[in-house]
């Protein structure tokens, strides 16, 4: 077990990267606490798998260092880093039994057979694979195969970190949920650092204590699920997390106040640097249909179960609001009010209001 630190990491798949745009990872600076549950969240192609492969040692970064505690492991191969990785598609050794699959990493390291036996049984019990220890791995269902991949990581008691690279991609929806809670439960039980890569916000937010949001090879925000939801530091985070995502509304800043289509909008705090392109960000959860406020016309109301997502037009701009109860009819004229301490200003996509507390 160890604390993992990435120091000014850059990576490019080209042999001679010219500009910054040739890099798939740019200036990654992060440190992961021992025993934490982390998620790396971002759209496909944002560099999250690359980052994972650098931590596991499958890739050597073009620039920068990887440290486990104080040791520099940047150039160490994966088998000397004591890490485990679970891949998108379940990797099992087809011809071996479940037992031998779980024992494989231990036997490769010359662990005594008596110790192998106890560990394999412990892990099999934890993963509920006890009954299938003697079956050939090729005969298992995808979710059980994925459990074996996990088990091969867990079986070594000295692992520094277990990494998951979109591990639920090939799992049926109803089993996804089961496997995810199993994972969470395992983390609480064995307290090993886990890093979970996904492009699915639900997976990230339910699994992790802390989520790292990435876009175009850069880290945009690191925070707890609540922080990411409540106060996105970047419009991308606002967009990417939440369903529907944050409303990002163009605005003008005049004398320290923000105006959206001519209406003054109260913000959470003072505006820090009103430079570049300025936008107001507010989540649909904090837009209310009210008696007074910004006049708007309802264009669409979609009932999504517990609540309705109402799309209201302020002049030519659509604003989403979450509404409980029977929704207003299409074409109704309403007023929108934005909850002030949940409304922020973004300049050139980065947050630039003072926090309310």
């Amino acid at each position, binding site marked *: 077990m160890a604390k993992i630190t990435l120091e000014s990491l850059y990576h490019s798949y080209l042999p001679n990267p010219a500009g910054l745009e040739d890099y798939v990872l740019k200036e990654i600076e992060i440190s992961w606490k021992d025993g934490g549950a982390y998620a790396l969240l971002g759209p496909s192609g944002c560099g999250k798998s690359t980052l994972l492969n650098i931590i596991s040692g*499958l890739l050597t970064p073009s620039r920068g260092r990887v440290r486990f505690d104080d040791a520099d492991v940047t150039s160490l191969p994966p*088998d000397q880093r004591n890490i485990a990785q679970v*891949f998108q598609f379940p*990797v099992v050794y087809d*011809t071996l039994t479940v037992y031998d699959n779980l024992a*494989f*990493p231990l036997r*490769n390291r010359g662990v005594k057979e008596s110790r192998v036996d106890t560990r394999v049984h412990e892990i099999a019990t934890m993963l509920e694979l006890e009954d299938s220890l003697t079956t*050939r791995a090729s005969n298992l269902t995808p979710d059980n195969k994925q459990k074996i991949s996990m088990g091969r990581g867990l079986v070594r008691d000295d692992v520094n970190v277990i990494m998951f690279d979109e591990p639920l991609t090939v799992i049926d929806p109803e089993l996804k949920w089961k496997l995810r809670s199993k994972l969470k439960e395992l983390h609480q039980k064995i307290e090993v650092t886990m890093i979970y890569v996904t492009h699915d916000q639900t997976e990230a937010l339910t699994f992790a204590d802390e989520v790292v949001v990435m876009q175009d090879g850069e880290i945009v925000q690191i925070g707890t699920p609540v922080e990411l939801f409540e106060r996105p530091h970047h419009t991308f985070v606002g967009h990417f997390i939440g369903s529907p995502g944050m409303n990002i509304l163009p605005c003008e800043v005049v004398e320290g106040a923000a105006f959206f289509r001519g209406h003054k909008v109260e913000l959470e705090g003072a505006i820090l640097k009103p430079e570049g392109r300025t936008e107001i960000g507010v989540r649909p959860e904090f837009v209310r249909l009210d008696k007074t406020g910004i006049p708007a016309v309802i264009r669409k109301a979609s009932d999504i179960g517990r609540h309705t997502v109402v799309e209201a037009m302020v002049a030519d701009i659509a604003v989403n609001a979450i509404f409980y109860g029977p929704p207003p009819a299409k074409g109704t004229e309403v007023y929108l009010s934005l909850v002030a301490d949940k409304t922020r200003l973004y300049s050139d996509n980065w947050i630039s209001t003072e926090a309310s507390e």
Partner: protein
Amino acid sequence: MKTENQRAWIFVLPVLILVAFNALVPLMTVVNYSVQETFGNNQFFWAGLRWFEEILQSERFHAALGRQLFFTFTILIIEIPLGVAIALAMPRKGLWVSVCLVLMALPLLIPWNVVGAMWNIFTLPKIGLLGWTMNNWLGIPYNMTVSPVAAWITVIMMDVWHWTSLVVLLAYAGLISIPEAYYQAARIDGASNWSVFRYIQLPKMKRVLTIAILLRFMDSFNIYTEPFVLTGGGPGNSTTLLSIDLVKVALGQFDLGPAAAMSLIYFVITLAVSWLFYTLMTRNEQ
């Protein structure tokens, strides 16, 4: 009640006719010959199973079958591991992939009788590169027309040269279909190169290797052209494989009945071994 559309049969009909004329009708002719005796003039007499009994008890048949089995077994033992080894050594990406693939495919493109002729010339003691080198330079007597051992070595070398490529290409296709994650997982699990081969590459190649072994078994068991051109079955009868012997009986001696019975026995052996092998290899799959 569910009505089934029978129109599909019309579309397979051309194939059925084609197969009937190039396989079923000739086969039935052979069956027909195998139970009759003829003295020419297109006159046939019923012979029952006499030819089958005769062939099954004939020492000549036993010897040819023995030579055939030895040949097939030897080339399989060499070609399969060699093919897998070459496939493992081939690059997986980059410019050299196409170069290697083309080089590998070359022997497969040469007509069989040309392969026989090439090796015949190659081993001639006076002018052949191999023959001359062995005899005059290394001082090892090597003459296919005199020594059965030399003839056997040449026949086997020729087959290995001609057909290992097929195994290589099939094994290579199996290898490149293995997802990168398997190798990555193995590296993380601390697996040795041998373990990677034993537990990842070999199991993933199993299907293509099954096909490779089947094809090589059937082809080598029925081989005719190359050894016929190379040695003509000699010296003596030492490289007379089953098919060469069959042609001698059928066309050399014009014993249609025994030749037909022999072909049927030959056919049944090939079929039985192929079926047995395939069943054994695939019995663990759902």
